[in-house]
């Protein structure tokens, strides 16, 4: 029996093998009746939306929103407030870096829970509430600002212009790399692995930012793109005229500018979460135990497979939408931009998946992160007075978790349908608008029923 210190594992290898990305507890499968109820609501809403929702486009995107009071905007846009956020970002990340570099590689080192839970999962609710927060906190941006100051150039200016055709592709790759670390890599919670990954991350993104200027981070840094895309669901937004506004998230989604790699980035968000659920299902476990592949190989293929599945199903649906919704009088040349034109409508669905899969992890492992934070170097400190606390596993019941999961998936679906509807009535001629919406509607129903099945069987 290995040493168990204070009820927590203290072996120095493979400690707390974190099955669900991190966290050793997984959610119980949702009851079948919940899955059915969710699917029925999704179906009813989808087809009701076709008949009931508006026939003329109503969303005004970047032009929409009720401005915040001018004094509040002055404060939020002030250099003082921006620097407060930058310093907060530096302090939070600096804290984790100290624990990761100077702390021992033990289960009670807070690094892994801070990276995988407070940062990665915590970015979801914070971005949905407040918008693209990581853009403000990102310590790489601040460090790059310092480098630019030393070089005597404005941060936006790099050595060469950022090629527009790159779009979100670097973010898609960087997000995929992180989800691979989270869900597939062996020893992903150990300090050497985390230090290697983030060491490489810092070098790659700082170098790219020096070459292309700080705009690199907008669509190159996976975490910023993740936070910004989820931030489209926030009631806070910035209007085209620069005013900070309160507006319907549908307008913020509508205002998302199309770009290369956008579909791939959203597909990584959706596909990685789906793979996370699927990798716990008996079907996948049976497959991996019977196959001769290592878990790393099968995990890599599984993750890649789910991301590609999301890209392919979405591309086929938008291609069909273009065929069915096209005005017979035109040559259909405008169809080429269709895949990106509907990408924003998948964001709420991806967000629903994320909330459903990570809600309980946030609640339970988030407590672990705060408890371990009091003793970052595992020396018996109690910096924040939380060190002696235990995780309260009664914080939310399995029934509550199941209800949150189903509501998140179905609500994501409903928002996706509404966002896609408005885009369809704008892009397609009136007579073809209903037919043009059908492929995307079936795609969304598929994603939603798939998401519910993963919760039921995964």
């Amino acid at each position, binding site marked *: *029996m*290995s040493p*168990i210190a204070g*009820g*927590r*594992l203290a*072996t120095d290898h*493979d400690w707390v*093998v974190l*099955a669900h990305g991190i966290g*050793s*507890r*997984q*959610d*119980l*499968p949702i*009851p079948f*009746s*919940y899955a*059915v*109820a*969710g699917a*029925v*609501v999704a179906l009813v*809403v989808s087809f009701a939306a076709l008949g*009931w*929702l*508006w026939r003329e486009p*109503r*969303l*005004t995107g970047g032009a*929409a929103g009720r401005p915040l009071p001018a004094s509040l905007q002055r404060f939020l846009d002030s250099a003082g407030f921006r620097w407060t956020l930058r310093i907060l970002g530096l302090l939070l990340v600096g804290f984790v870096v100290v624990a990761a570099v100077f702390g021992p590689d033990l289960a009670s080192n807070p690094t892994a829970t801070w990276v995988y839970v407070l940062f990665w999962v915590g970015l979801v609710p914070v971005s949905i509430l407040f918008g693209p927060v990581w853009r403000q906190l990102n310590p790489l941006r601040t460090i790059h600002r310092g480098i630019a100051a030393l070089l005597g150039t404005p941060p936006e200016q790099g050595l060469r212009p950022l090629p527009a055709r790159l779009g979100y592709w670097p973010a898609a790759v960087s997000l995929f790399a992180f989800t691979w670390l989270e869900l597939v890599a062996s020893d992903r919670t150990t300090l050497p692995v985390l230090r290697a990954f983030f060491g490489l991350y810092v070098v790659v993104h700082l170098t790219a930012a020096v070459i292309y200027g700080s705009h690199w981070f907008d669509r190159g840094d996976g975490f910023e793109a993740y936070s910004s895309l989820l931030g489209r669901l926030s009631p806070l937004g910035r209007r085209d005229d620069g005013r900070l506004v309160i*507006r*319907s998230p*549908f*307008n913020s989604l509508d205002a998302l500018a199309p770009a290369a790699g956008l579909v791939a980035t959203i597909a990584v968000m959706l596909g990685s979460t789906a793979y996370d659920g699927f990798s*716990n299902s*008996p*079907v996948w*476990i*049976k497959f*991996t*135990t019977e196959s001769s592949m*290592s*878990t790393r190989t099968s995990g890599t293929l599984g993750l890649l497979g789910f991301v590609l599945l999301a890209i392919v199903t979405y591309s086929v649906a938008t291609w069909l939408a273009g065929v069915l919704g096209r005005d017979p009088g035109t040559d259909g040349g405008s169809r080429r931009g269709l895949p990106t034109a509907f990408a924003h409508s998948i964001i709420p669905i991806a967000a629903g998946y994320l909330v459903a899969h990570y809600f*309980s992890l946030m609640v339970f492992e988030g407590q672990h992160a705060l408890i371990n934070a009091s003793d970052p170097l595992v020396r018996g400190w109690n910096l924040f007075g939380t060190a002696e606390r235990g995780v309260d*596993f009664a914080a939310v*019941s*399995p*029934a509550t978790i*199941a*209800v949150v999961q*189903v*509501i998140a998936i*179905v*609500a994501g679906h*409903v*928002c996706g349908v*509404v966002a896609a509807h*408005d885009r369809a009535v704008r892009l397609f001629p009136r007579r073809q608008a209903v037919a043009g919406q059908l492929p995307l509607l079936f795609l969304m129903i598929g994603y939603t029923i798939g998401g519910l099945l993963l919760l039921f069987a995964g």
Partner: protein
Amino acid sequence: MRSATRIAASLATLITLTVVAAACSDNSDSQDGQPPTPTGVTSTQPSTLPTSASPAPNETVIEVSVMDGRVSPSPDRRVEVSRGQLVRIVVNSDVADEIHVHGYDLEEAVDAGGAATLEFEADQPGAFEVELHDQDPGLLFTLLVR
């Protein structure tokens, strides 16, 4: 845009009502339905008299064996127990390794050709993997505590 918000709000209400209705109806289902007893799991009857060697009343015994790198019964099985139940896991293995019950953070070493027993009260709801540390993949089974 106001109507979009109104529609979204009424849809949210509809979802909530449906899920809550499902939640209410489900409670009665799950109490009637006995979870199926998978192979390799022995549920002792409360009437069994406890002796020093035999399991305590209401204890679920889960047996697993690991031979030539194969786990039997197949590791994709899920063993359901009720919250508060005593669980005894008996692992026979032809390799020396460490057995780990996730979430409960219990560990027990097993010798090559030996057996290891872990006993605990399943007081925390959720799904928990039980696995061997040094195998790839090392999953033995998943414990569902409802």
